[in-house]
């Protein structure tokens, strides 16, 4: 029992609300609570829209229209979802190990920079398929190495990985800005930007969207199997639950941390390659565009399950695409997407409590529940 509200003026009264751990709750009921939380979050969002003087229903409908209404908007939504899904896979692998990798942003950027190097300076030297393969590998390796740095320091000296990975984001973006303003600047006397990629360095399209979406869906299956069915996946789960147990079981914990973070970073690097080569055809400081952070939301809401991530990232992509639309239609700033994402996350985080605990109000007799030994 613990008290929701603080001391009543008179000491020694029964607390107003007590919280008691529930026995296990049926799967359907748990999901009902989650659905209610999502609804609650959308209602809270509606309240903000209402305060700004708009009709929430119209705004939400416009968001849906904006993300689904036409073929163009649908492909745009998928294009937003692809990097988000990839970054979520990256984050989930690390989170499963309880390694707080919030550096997907930087890992994506480093992958993008490495891929761009070949796209910009070696596109004449090889055929398109080889160039794309080299760019892809470069992205994977660069992202992986960027993920490796904090992992090594964490494994060897226990350095806090949350802040380390985060700082590496800023450093990666700073490095990109340096390239953009200096050595890689397209026109030395013009606006600081990097040249567009040649046609050979661009990913082909399937059903109107670059092939990145197929790569990502394949990766979902691979990561799912890797986490659930392989020895390495098993090691990640054990290290995440308890490092002591992992050591006891004879696992090389340091190696596992370093290896997993390389893979995690490599996935982000792959995302970086897909972004520059499939979506933007160039490198900019917003190539990673915040997906590294949003991915944390996706991974957590999906309970680190890659299959569920497909749907959650699609949902958040709809939110984001929809927010761009309402900016033009209603003059509601596009940052509404992050406000809504934050609210949804708050509600989903909070609702887990009601799945695990039950409230008892003062004066209410508790009904006895069955018990096992």
């Amino acid at each position, binding site marked *: 029992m613990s008290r929701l509200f603080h001391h009543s003026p008179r000491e020694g009264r029964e607390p107003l609300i007590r919280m008691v751990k529930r026995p296990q709750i049926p799967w359907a009921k748990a999901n009902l609570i989650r659905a209610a939380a999502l609804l609650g979050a959308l209602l809270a969002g509606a309240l903000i829209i209402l305060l700004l003087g708009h009709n929430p229903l119209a705004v939400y409908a416009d968001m849906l229209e904006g993300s689904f209404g036409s073929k163009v908007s649908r492909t745009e939504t998928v294009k937003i979802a692809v990097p988000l899904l990839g970054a979520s896979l990256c984050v989930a692998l690390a989170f499963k190990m309880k390694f707080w990798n919030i550096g997907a942003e930087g890992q994506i950027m480093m992958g993008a920079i490495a891929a761009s190097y070949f796209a910009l300076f070696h596109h004449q030297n090889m055929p398109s398929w080889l160039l794309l393969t080299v760019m892809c590998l470069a992205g994977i390796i660069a992202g992986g190495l960027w993920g490796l740095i904090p992992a090594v320091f964490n494994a060897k000296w226990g350095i806090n990985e949350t802040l380390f990975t985060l700082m590496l984001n800023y*450093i990666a973006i700073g490095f990109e800005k340096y390239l953009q303003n200096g050595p890689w600047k397209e026109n030395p006397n013009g606006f600081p930007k990097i040249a567009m990629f040649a046609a050979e360095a661009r990913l082909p399209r399937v059903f109107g969207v670059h092939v990145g979406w197929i790569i990502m869906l394949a990766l979902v299956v691979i990561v799912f199997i890797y986490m659930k069915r392989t020895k390495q996946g098993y090691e990640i789960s054990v290290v995440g639950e308890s490092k002591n147990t992992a050591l006891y079981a004879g696992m090389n914990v340091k190696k596992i941390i370093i290896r997993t973070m390389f893979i995690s970073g490599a996935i982000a690097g792959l995302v970086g390659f897909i972004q520059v080569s499939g979506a933007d055809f160039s490198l900019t400081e917003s190539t990673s565009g915040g997906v590294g952070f949003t991915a944390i*939301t996706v991974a957590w809401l999906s309970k680190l399950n890659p299959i569920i991530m497909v749907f959650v990232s699609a949902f958040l992509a709809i939110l984001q695409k929809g927010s761009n639309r309402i900016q033009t239609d209603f003059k509601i700033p596009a940052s509404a997407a*992050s406000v809504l994402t934050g609210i949804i996350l*708050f509600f989903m985080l909070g609702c887990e409590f009601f799945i695990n605990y039950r409230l008892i109000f003062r004066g209410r007799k508790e009904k006895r529940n069955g018990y096992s030994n």
Partner: protein
Amino acid sequence: MDTVINLFCAAVLAGTPLLFGTLGEILTEKSGNLNLGVEGMMFMGAIAGLAGAYFYEQIFTVPSGIVAAIIAVVFSFLCGVLGALIYSFLTVTLRSNQNVTGLALTIFGTGFGNFFGDVLAGRAPSGYAAVGAEIKSVFQGIKIPFLSDIPYIGKLFFSYNFLVYVGVIIAVLMHFFLNKTRAGLNLRAVGEDPAAADAAGINVTKYKYLATCIGGGICGIGGMYVSMVICSGVWVFNCVGGIGWIAVALVIFATWSPSRALLGSLIFGGLSIMRLYVPLGIPIQIYDIFPYLATVIVLIATGIRQSKEHSIPKSTGLNYFREDR
């Protein structure tokens, strides 16, 4: 000599938002809550302070600078409290994961700041939200007769805007509170070992809520410093841009001591404005990553040598539920 003094003064000015963020997070972590939402709360404070002053100016045709300053401080503090309150409710009462809740608060707060910043700008006739000269001047350096005129000393110590002094006073008060008072002792006990504190009759929930919310409020003021002082009362998209995160790292650098936070924020303030004062002949984009690079170095250095007394409150990051068994 003048360069050194100018560098020092600029470092103080650039370091003050870091100081607020660091102090707020120290107080928060002392209660065992690791709130990674500093960046978000600073954004919330930034827009609240600016919006408060802005609307005050709109409503009263003859605005008083002092009143505007008070409004900005109070509004930003309250908005920071609001963010921290969401965090406390989720982690303390609903026992959600502290890391994820803090990150969610950053996502929310960043969106909140930019969203309302854009709303404010979008509705201003000029297309951008800015306060007038009268209000802007209160957030400029002060001028104390006689003291400010002393050579060197005046510039070094008596030339800053009032928020710098507020920050230093908060640091001193916090140091006294944590080390010399009963409530401070109780708070430290809550952060170190909530079960022991609870058994000793301390209301753990109350201490966690209060410390986290006041800490959040202090972070909020730091955000307001960014919008009102650094951006001179104009809303700039993404204005906080990472300051909150450096503050979280500075807490480690300061080894959870408010007095050392003063030194830390001065150093990091200095790093962030170095390109203007110390020419090294390297591109400015490289200068810009110095604070982050330095943070990494600080993380590594403090992580490798650890001591029992000057380390993170033991329960930080873990939620406390009395009936857990």
